[in-house]
């Protein structure tokens, strides 16, 4: 027990990680609290941010002890989850079918390739005009980029499958639907999960932008509000909140991926 603890504490990877964080925070402190660089005048130092973030009576009215903090998180997480789930279900389905059926691919691919590079934010005007309510428009903007990332990666996943697996499956007496279930879906899973991770990242980015432009609540909206109200402590604490949430969602996807792809994990000797 103790030796394990010792091994963890002296693990070089952990030590380097902590050093990296220490240097980062140190530089931040140096620029904002010690050197008082001209462009950093208004930027709060790390201690001020932490104080505000963990205060019972924050100047901005937003800390881990306030209800509004969790309300902001709930709004943002809710929107991201809704958008991401939709992007996964629709994106994986579309990608698999495009990879499975050449005719369908011919129809769908050009449209996907034109829509895919459009920046999510460029959808905002149309989203607001077409969709009922600003809320759904924000979710749509969060959804759209993740959706295309998922479609493309799923499609690449299907294309990455060794041709011999298809031939073997047919030799063994598979009907097309058996090939779909036993070859196409599991064979493309590694790429699908790469796509989901990318999609999750893009979701968070687009979400904050969407909230800033069209939102009423949520972390992105609150960050922008903090900017106007000169509450820079909470701008920064919310940025870190977003960072933590983004990290947690990626880790969650990785964990699910590992469970679904035991064969992949064991190949890598994990």
């Amino acid at each position: 027990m103790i030796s394990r603890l010792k091994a963890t504490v002296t693990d070089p990877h952990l030590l380097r990680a902590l050093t990296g964080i220490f240097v980062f925070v140190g530089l931040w402190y140096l620029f904002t609290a010690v050197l008082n660089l001209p462009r950093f005048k208004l930027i709060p130092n790390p201690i001020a941010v932490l104080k505000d973030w963990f205060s019972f009576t924050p100047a901005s009215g937003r800390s881990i002890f306030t209800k509004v903090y969790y309300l902001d998180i709930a709004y943002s997480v809710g929107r991201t989850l809704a958008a991401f789930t939709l992007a996964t279900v629709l994106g994986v389905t579309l990608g698999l079918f495009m990879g499975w059926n050449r005719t369908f691919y011919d129809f769908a691919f050009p449209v996907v390739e034109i829509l895919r590079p459009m920046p999510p934010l460029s959808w905002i005007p149309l989203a607001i005009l077409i969709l009922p309510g600003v809320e759904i428009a924000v979710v749509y903007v969060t959804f759209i980029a993740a959706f295309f990332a998922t479609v493309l990666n799923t499609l690449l996943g299907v294309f990455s499958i060794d041709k011999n697996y298809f031939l073997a499956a047919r030799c063994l007496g598979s009907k097309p639907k058996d090939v779909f279930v036993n070859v196409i879906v599991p064979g493309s899973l590694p790429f699908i999960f790469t796509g989901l991770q990318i999609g999750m990242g893009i979701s968070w980015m687009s979400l904050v932008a969407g909230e800033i432009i069209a939102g009423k609540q949520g972390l992105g909206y609150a960050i922008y509000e903090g900017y106007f109200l000169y509450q820079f402590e909470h701008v920064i604490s919310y940025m870190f909140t977003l960072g933590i949430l983004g990290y947690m969602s990626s880790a969650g996807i990785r964990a699910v991926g590992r469970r679904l792809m035991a064969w992949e994990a064991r190949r890598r000797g994990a």
Partner: protein
Amino acid sequence: MATGVQNNQGEILIKNVTKIYDPEGVHVVAMKDCSFDIAAGEFAVIVGPSGCGKTTLLNAIAGFDTITSGEIYLDGELISSRDKQIRPDVERMVVFQNGALFPWKTVMENVIYGPVVQKRMKKREAVDVARRMLHQVGLNGIEDKYPEELSSGVQRRVEILRALINKPKVVMLDEPFRGLDAVAKTVMHEFLMDIFCESPRTMFFITHDLDEAIFLGNKVVIMTTRPAQVKKIVHVNLAWPREHHMLASETYLDLKREVLEAVHEEAKKAFEAGEREMA
């Protein structure tokens, strides 16, 4: 193995098969007027220079590809011609060059895949059969492992069992033991020999390894360089089951000389043709 009953099925007639590949107007005659037969239950080994169209034949019999002209019959039924490409089916199983066990399925899931997907057996029943087959060849305790956790020699054996559980008329193996070291190859040969002796069925075995060809085959079909035809058929009249001491026998050495000469001639031609193409 599975039943141990020889069913006199799996006779293959290859008649004047020609295959022309024509990708973007480059006219490549891979095979021209190639004819030979494989009797039911015969272990035929096909050898010849690289790119001589051995795999072309395999693909046509398996139903993966068409031929340009000629006919291929299986038990009297036309399965491949200019206008006909049969669908891949369990009666004609292929074991692939680089292995095609599904990496996302365990050994057990791989072996039972055929009978279950064809709804020939209930899953429980298939598991019993598969376990018995694995046990019989000494591969116990790997049922729940994924293919990539196993050595390539074990992977190949599992893949062959996955084919055999379907009781195919013909098993086609495209250089299945390529890349294995000499020791592993010996193990594979004994494995295949046991399986074949227990329940003979038509084998279509492609290889570059002449010792392997003579050791395993009833019949060694030597192909010419492109366009491929049959150069020579050598009947191997060694007793069954084959044993490794036979590799040193007089008969064996004579056979090997015969095969070697034929192959060497073709290899030389192929090499010179290659030189010409380069020039």
